[in-house]
Each structure stands twice: as C-alpha cells, then as structure tokens.
C-alpha cells in the first residue's frame, strides 16, 4: 500500500499531469527525471501534458493485485497523449468487450487507491472514453 509521504511526493504528476521538458533537446519526460537520456542535459522546465490521446495497447486485469481485487476485471492501457508522451493508466467507464486500440480517450481525476479502511486516499488520473 502507498504511504502518505510517497503519495504526497507524486502530487504534481498525479493531480496536474506535470511533466519535464529538457531545456537542451526538448524531450518530454513523465514522470520527470534528473538527467535527460537523449542529450544528458540536467535542466528541465515543467510542462502540463495534454489531457487526451489515443489508446496504443491495453490488457484486461482479471487477477488483480492487493487493493484492486474488487475492481477486477478492469482495463489498463498505454495511451499516446496528443503529440506527447505515452502514459500508462487504468481505463474506466468503458465496455471491456469493445475496448480497442486507436480509441480516443481522455484523462479524468479519480481515486486510484486507498490505504485500507483508515489510511490515506490516493487520487490521480485514469482514462475514460472521450
């Protein structure tokens, strides 16, 4: 289970989709990293990711990890955000039988997990059909 400190540290990415653009070569990283793997630059500027994209691939989780059992079966996909990076996230409010690559999706703010009955609630992004 995710603790409050790690959750808090990831808030800019999970809440606001903040990525980092390398000042040297312009490559965008999500989540941000300290050194650019293309030009080895160390200077980055924050950039907000586009909030819509196209489903590139997905899988249906039928045997879910701890904390997600009640949601199975559910979809997790890799989505290419418009002219930007690829992001992996759950896909919800969709028909698992007709979900298909190439489908247009958009980001929505959802509760991603919770630390048991008394722990912290973790919010972030999921994809929904556009």
């Amino acid at each position, binding site marked *: 289970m995710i603790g409050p400190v790690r959750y808090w540290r990831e808030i800019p990415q999970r809440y606001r989709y903040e990525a980092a653009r390398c000042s040297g070569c312009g490559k965008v990283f999500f989540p941000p990293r300290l050194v650019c793997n293309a030009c080895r630059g160390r200077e980055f500027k924050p950039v907000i990711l586009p909030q819509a994209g196209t489903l590139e691939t997905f899988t249906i989780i039928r045997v879910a990890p701890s904390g997600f059992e009640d949601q199975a079966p559910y979809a997790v996909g890799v989505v290419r955000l418009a002219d930007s990076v690829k992001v992996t996230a759950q896909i*919800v409010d969709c028909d698992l039988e007709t979900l298909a690559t190439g489908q247009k999706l958009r980001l929505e703010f959802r*509760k991603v997990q919770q630390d048991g009955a008394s722990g912290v*609630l973790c*919010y972030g992004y999921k994809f929904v059909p556009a």
Partner: protein
Amino acid sequence: MEVGIRGYGAYIPRHRIRVEEIARVWGADAPTYKRGLGLREKSVPTPDQDVITMSVEAARHAIRRAGIDPAKIGAIYIGSESHPYAVKPSGTVVAEAIGATPEIHCADFEFACKAGSEGMFVALSLVKAGQMEFAMGIGADTSQGAPGDALEYSASAGSAAYIFASTQLVAVCEETYAFMTDTPDFWRREYQFYPRHGGRFTGEPAYFKHTLSCARGLMKKAKVKPKDLRWAVFHQPNGKFPAKAAEELGFTSDQYGQGLLSPTLGNTYSGASPLGLTAVLDVAKPGDRILMVSYGSGAGSDGFIWRVTDRITKVQKLAPQTRAQLEDRPIYVDYGTYAKFRGKIRKLTE
C-alpha cells in the same frame, strides 16, 4: 461594483440505476414510487468517484469558462455532506489539482443539501468585499440513502462549481437572501452511515416553508415578480417538490423545467440547485434573469437572483454542458452492482 459568476462547471457520473431496479429488490411498486417522487432513474458514483474527484472535474470546467489563471483563485469552499474524509479537507486536494495552491483559503462546508449554495454565498461575498479577485464555490455529493428507504430511490451523485469575480461576468448577482430556522427534518449523527429523516415532516414544515419563504423574501427584496424572471431553479430532492413549490410561487414549467434535473439525475444533495443553475446557464440568453433557491435540512434556504450578461454565449460551449452529460452514454447497473459500488455490502475485514 457588480459581482457575479465568471465561470461555471458541472460534473455528472455516467452510471445510472432505474427506479424499477431498486423497487424490484425491495418488493415495492415502481409505478407508485415513480409517480410519487417524480423520478425515473438516478446517477450512481463508481468506487473511484467521490466528492473530491467530482469537484475537481467541475472546477476544471469552471476554469475553462472563466478563462482565468487558477493560481489567482483566492478561496475554494466545498459544500457537501459526503466529504471523503471525516478529518482532512476536500478543498486542499481540489485546490492542488487545479493549480490554485498555495495562496488560497480553503474550507469544507456542511449544511445538509444547502452546503453548496452556502459555499457560493461566502465565495461571492468575499469577492464583493474586495478581499480577493476570484473565489470558487462548489456543491458536490455522493448522497447516502439507507437500503430500502425512500431516500434510496433518489440519493445520487454530481457536482457544480462556480468562479465568482467582478470582471467578465456571465451572470451578475442582483440580490441574495437567506431564510433559516431550527427544523429537525433530516439528520445524520456522528459515526452513522445513513441519514434519518422525518418522513412527511420533511415536506410542508421543512422544504416548502423554507423554500417558499426564501423565494418570496428574495423577490420582495429585489422588487421582482415571477413574470420578471426567465428561469427558476430550486433544490430538488425529487421531481415533485420543486415543481410544486415553483407553481405555488407562480412560475410555469417553461421557467422551472430546464433547471429541474432530478427526474433523471436524482437528488445530488449539495449539488442539486447548483447543478440546476448550470443547466440553465447552458441555455440562458443575455438579459435573462434567474431565481435560484437552495434548501438544506436542519433547515434553511439561500436565494440568489442572477442577471445573465452578453458574455454567456461565448462560454456556454467551452466545457461539457449539464444536460449533455446527463444524456451522454449512461451505463445502467443492477442493484447488486449498485450495492457494491456504494459500499452497502459488508465484506470480511482483515
């Protein structure tokens, strides 16, 4: 200085349950409930949707229509009776998600179904007082209703967010009014999962007394009559009460129908009249005047008269419209799924 609404936004979950499905489980007569409550179906939040997530989405829609830098929002007040945490603010999550932190004042409001308009009232007043350039008021709920109780047919989910300002308004606030008494018609005690209510006592001495008195007091203060107002929006615990209140005040269905979402949305508690107002703003024309009266058990009503400006037509399509969301690909669930989504099934705990 004129103050009012600069941006507004709504959010409605896509899942629905029909009155027939709830009635089937409890052996109730669905046509009687549909007729008696004026409801056909209601929205259902999924386990990953709560007051915080719905408020973020509504707030983002409001920001798009307001066309402002969210960092300049000076306050966020979220009214709800289903804040996800007993202790920890909903407002800070919303403020962080929309990029309004850290120079912002946050508070979570609670006053049964009136908490949303309460947040609107305070946010509007702070802008009017010159304390801040922009302030946001949100009404949102994932309403609770005990299994088998009449409330279960109506208790639903949704949110509406408003950004108040003194520039580039879409609706000017012409007048406000409030009417409160101590009336125990509906309550939920600490540690109780479901609210209790006074049955028929929730009608005449509660909803109708406060809603009608607030509307009459508001119109008297503003020196207007129902014929001077293009639209009227009321708190909507079901489909019947607001229609009856509106007609008793002298409004026609042409005036109150657009803002009456409950027949297919249900009762979104703190989100109810704020969501009704978003549906009206979606279609309002410059110069239209709107009466809005909320109601919260306990009990009281907040009233507002809004005058729509020329800017409205420029923002209506900048974010998803309310009735479009209500009709957008609804996903119908059976009672078992609904009970699972709403945590009504007691599971083995570790």
